[in-house]
């Protein structure tokens, strides 16, 4: 429903009113921006000293700073990639177990999923980093981050896949059974491939959450963007500028992933003519606001 349904097509008077309020709003927004910029300029936040190392290739610190940021990017993508792979594998196992579990122990699977869903990701990461060494499992920091992130994201992905399976028409599994396929064969050759396809947009959106959550590695000193930014700030003393650059990098990565998800969703909804209408990517609550 576009907002135009709420009111008639504006006549000359309404158009004039809209124009006036647009101008007023634009002026207010502009004034706020100017005030902020002036204030920052007053504090010397636009000085070459603060921005130079980040944006001027001839600055002596430029190469070192971007080298650090490049390493942070690699660290972030490594952690996100590993988390995605593990979460997909474990999430699929969770989903299949939940779908096929007999009633006698389904509550157990559901219980574990609900429990892990209620745990803040930071705590999961911190838990992995502090408790695993206590029980004698010492790993590189990267793995604590990946384990913490996987604990949370695998159950979310399990729910996405389960919703994908549920969205398929019954005829799919019925046809499989009538051909004499076993339950396992129906799942692995008929239901799961289609569920992944239907849920691809939701899975990509979850990847955005994973990328964002890798930033929590800073609490266990994993050198992703936030930790790296804090290191840069210690020498350059330019927190605002560094965080603006880090935010821009994150927005660039995640905005493109979001657009990719939208594109895939459009393509899928055009391609699917036989099966049921695809569930909307947001059908499962992927904890959209999940994590940081």
């Amino acid at each position, binding site marked *: 429903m576009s907002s135009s349904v709420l009111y008639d097509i504006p006549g000359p008077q309404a158009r004039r009113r809209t124009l006036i309020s647009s101008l007023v709003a634009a002026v207010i927004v502009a004034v706020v921006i100017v005030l902020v910029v002036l204030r920052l300029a007053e504090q010397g936040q636009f000085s070459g000293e603060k921005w130079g190392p980040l944006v001027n290739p001839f600055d002596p610190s430029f190469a070192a700073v971007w080298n650090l940021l490049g390493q942070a990017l690699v660290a972030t993508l490594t952690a996100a990639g590993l988390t995605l792979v593990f979460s997909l594998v474990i999430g699929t196992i969770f989903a299949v177990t939940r779908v096929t579990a007999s009633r006698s122990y389904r509550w157990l699977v559901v219980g574990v999923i609900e429990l892990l869903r209620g745990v803040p990701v930071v705590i999961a990461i911190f838990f992995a980093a502090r408790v695993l060494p206590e029980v004698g499992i010492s790993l590189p920091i990267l793995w604590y981050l990946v384990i913490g992130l996987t604990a949370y994201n695998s159950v979310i992905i399990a729910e996405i896949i389960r919703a994908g399976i549920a969205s398929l028409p019954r005829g799919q599994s019925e046809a499989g059974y009538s051909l004499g396929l076993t339950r396992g064969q129906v799942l692995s050759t008929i239901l799961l491939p289609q569920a992944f396809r239907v849920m691809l947009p939701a899975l990509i959106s979850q990847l955005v959450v994973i990328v964002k959550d890798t930033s929590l590695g800073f609490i266990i000193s994993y050198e992703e963007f936030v930790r790296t930014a804090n290191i840069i700030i210690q020498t350059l003393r330019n927190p605002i500028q560094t965080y603006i650059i880090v935010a821009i990098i994150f927005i660039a990565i995640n905005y493109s992933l979001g657009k990719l998800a939208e594109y895939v969703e459009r393509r899928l909804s055009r391609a699917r003519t036989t099966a049921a209408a695809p569930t909307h990517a947001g059908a499962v609550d992927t904890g959209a606001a*999940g994590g940081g």
Partner: protein
Amino acid sequence: MGVIVEQFPLYVQGFLQTVRICILAAVGSLILGTILAAFRVSPVPPLRAVGAAWVTVFRNTPLAVVLFAVAFGLPELGINGSYFWFGVAGLTLYTAAFVCEAVRSGINSVSAGQAEAARAMGLTFSQSLSLIVLPQAFRTVVPPLGSVIIAMIKNSAIVGAFGVGGDLFAVGVQLTSAQGYAAAGVLTGVLLGYLILTIPAGIVLARLERKLAVAR
């Protein structure tokens, strides 16, 4: 696990601090998010742009980055405060973007025919919005808003990690790092604190969702 009994008062304090952060940020982000949603459906282009920009920036930036940017940025703008308020502010700004999207999708989910019928009957804009569209939007908005708030409760732990102090997460750090308790016991206590908040909230939400579900 003995630590939970030994340090129970500290846990209670941390729990209350977490609840305090959550209530402040929830109220703030619901108000701010609704205003942003109104911006996004308004016929005024500059306001729509502000809403869209806000959502794009804050949905794609990690909360940790938002928090650090707020803590370093606000003092430069002449806004000073304690880390507690910076933490609450960061969490509010971040969550407002998700509230905005939930509210907006709720308004958009009311089928066009409803508003058209209202207009055909001669109701004015404000009448059709307040009598026809919003009451129906409310039903669809409650479940997604609930999950946003539950996610926010979990995100409040990041505010603690960022250094607000005194909340459940900080209690966990203090007991393991400074007082040398075994992490397994300490963190189980911390986890229980969060689960006390999130699991009942999830159950209430599921109930509400079933109750408010309407066939469309």
